[in-house]
């Protein structure tokens, strides 16, 4: 059947709530409205206002109370309505959610799944198109995953909710309406494994979330040029499947990392560091990065110039091959 990413995540939330009555979904407008992207549509009708509820408009409050609910014994699935509005919750996420297990010497379990629609490309007003993954990846104690396909939308959501560790689930909002012909419940490898979405010989394209589709489009276009690109979808940003990246680069000798987030200290920097540490003598070219620029996210009419696209990826592929 044809399933969108949003529908796949919605089904995952539905199934998780049906399987375990300790799973709670809450946040701003997730109840009656079903979420501004309708990802939580129908949950309140089916599971009641106690298990899927609207909170006051306060993101720190949402994450802080999720921590208390988790300490009590629930499995909270709070939503940050948009990437740019997760920042008021930064302290609760970084100082407590990420650290309480360690602080308690393992006594406390925080099975919290923080859902954050992220990234640009939807023509939104300021603060609605950010890619904050580096903040969470840099914070010890958080697991950070992001689906690039509807199957992963289902599988990674289920895995996150089932985890006894706190998970940041970054949902690529521009891909919410991306369709796939799949059966639900979908299965997928565990989040710890990156997946080759398209095998290739010449250059490894390391990508995740919203850029998986863009990278696949680039690989398609590259064929016209006679270049064979391997598209590797990281799926989990923390932990990162270094082994799969290195294995691919050892075959291709070249890598281009693609992400929407700004370049400096982005995931590309970490991928490049790991590749040169582990596969230095296999490299035919430096690891290159097709990313957003180190500017604030642009106004909507300019985002097309800012976001990495097929052309930017192919330019870097060409540069890589020229070494």
């Amino acid at each position, binding site marked *: 059947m044809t399933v969108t990413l949003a529908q796949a995540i919605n089904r995952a939330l539905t199934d998780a709530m049906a399987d375990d009555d300790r799973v*709670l979904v809450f946040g701003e407008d997730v109840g009656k409205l079903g979420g501004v992207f309708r990802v939580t549509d129908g949950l309140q009708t089916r599971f009641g206002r*106690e298990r899927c509820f609207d*909170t*006051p408009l*306060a993101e*720190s*409050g949402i*994450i*802080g*109370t*999720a*921590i*208390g*609910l*988790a*300490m*009590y*014994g*629930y499995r*909270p699935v709070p939503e940050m309505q948009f990437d740019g509005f997760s920042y*008021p919750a930064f*302290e*609760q996420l970084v*100082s*407590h959610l990420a650290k*309480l*297990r*360690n*602080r*308690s*010497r*393992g*006594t*406390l*379990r925080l099975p919290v799944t923080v859902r954050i629609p992220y990234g640009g490309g939807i023509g939104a007003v300021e603060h609605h198109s950010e890619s904050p993954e580096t903040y969470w990846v840099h914070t*010890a*104690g958080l*697991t950070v995953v992001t689906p690039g396909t509807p199957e992963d939308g289902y599988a990674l959501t289920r895995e996150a909710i089932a*985890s*006894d*560790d706190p998970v940041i689930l970054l949902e690529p909002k521009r891909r919410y309406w991306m369709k796939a012909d799949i059966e639900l419940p979908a299965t997928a490898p565990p989040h*710890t494994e990156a997946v080759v979405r398209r095998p290739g010989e010449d250059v490894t394209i390391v990508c995740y979330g919203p850029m998986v589709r863009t990278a696949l489009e680039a690989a398609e276009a590259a064929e016209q040029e006679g270049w064979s690109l391997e598209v590797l979808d990281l799926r989990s940003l923390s*932990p*990162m499947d*270094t*082994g799969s990246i*290195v294995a691919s680069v*050892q075959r291709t000798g070249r890598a281009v990392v693609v992400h929407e987030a700004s370049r400096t200290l982005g995931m590309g920097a970490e991928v490049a560091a790991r590749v040169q*540490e*582990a*596969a*230095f*003598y*296999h490299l035919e070219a430096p690891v290159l990065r097709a990313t957003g620029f180190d500017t604030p996210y642009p106004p909507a009419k300019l985002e097309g110039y800012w976001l990495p696209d097929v052309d930017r990826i192919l330019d870097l592929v060409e540069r890589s091959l020229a070494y």
Partner: protein
Amino acid sequence: MGEDVTAPAADARDPASLLPPDEPVRLLSPDGTFHADAAYPVALSDAELVAIHRAMVITRRVDREAINLQRQGQLGVYASCLGQEAAQVASAWALDAQDWVFPSYRELGAAVVREVDPADLLHLFRGTWLSNHDPYEHRFALLSIPIGTQALHATGFAMGARLDANPLVTIVYFGDGGTSEGDPHEAMTFAGVLRAPVVFFVQNNQYAISVPLDQQTAAPTLAHKAVGYGLPGYRCDGNDPLATFAVTRRAVEDARAGHGPALIEALTYRMEAHTTSDDPTRYRTQEELEAAARTDPIARMRNHLRQRDLLDDATEAGFEQEADERARAVRDAIYDAPHGDPLELFDHVTLADRADLAAQREELRAELAARVAGQEGDDGPGPAPGAGGDA
């Protein structure tokens, strides 16, 4: 034609019912004389009154020991609760066994009531580990350093209890400075809307490090803030253990009965520095300190018990001796206490095993081995951290 949405709602709560009393509730004069207030009954047996006194005496003695340990270099820093013993002990005494305490970092008195070993808390200040007690055993959450953040944890926990039809109540401690932070504001907003059975207990000890209350808020009192969240605001003399107990008990039982959360402002005074790293002579006078000392909570309780013939010399001497023994036990546990295995740093980050952490753990293990080898004068330094790869 719809209703006039700008008109006041018919069911709006009368803010007057939420307002704190004009004067803070006080049941004991500084000389120990009791003045009953029908609105705030003191449901305590004579034995419990004496037990509260005992807990305050132990708290003060152990607090002093912690300061001494810091002076001797055994603790990195310590935040004393001197002068706040009644606010902490008597409020914690108002809880039932199943209720939960969410402390800041200054709640030794509440910890004593909850029978948390003070030495376990002091490991945070020594730096041997970040905590050392089981919060579920004592229903006493971990000490929380970022100001006011624990108010949300207490609220979420209480939301969970309500959802579960579990009649437990949570109490969260923060200070006058904490009321300026966003998280207690969000917590009281959530608790009010979601009817979470949580009591917000503000120890107004007059200072946030050096900043006095009048630079912290323009509110009439901290308790008045409750009205904005739809919570009843209480005010009590926090150096009066009986008033603190009675007010807290009322708020706790109202919350347990489903009447929702409450905010209590307990007026007290931090007799010590903010922490051992602070120099309070830069921001307050000796005269002010001496005036505050005249409201001392332990002297007040002692006077009261003496007046009622509930405390004789022998009992008092027994408490002093017990307090000394507790202090000595804390000293024994903390003095030169070794840190654990450095490799434990990797053990609690996540429950799931992570290959990246396992690799870094191996790096540290190699460094440790090289250090041992170096000390033994053997092979010299081991391999550099992170060395390896496919070269």
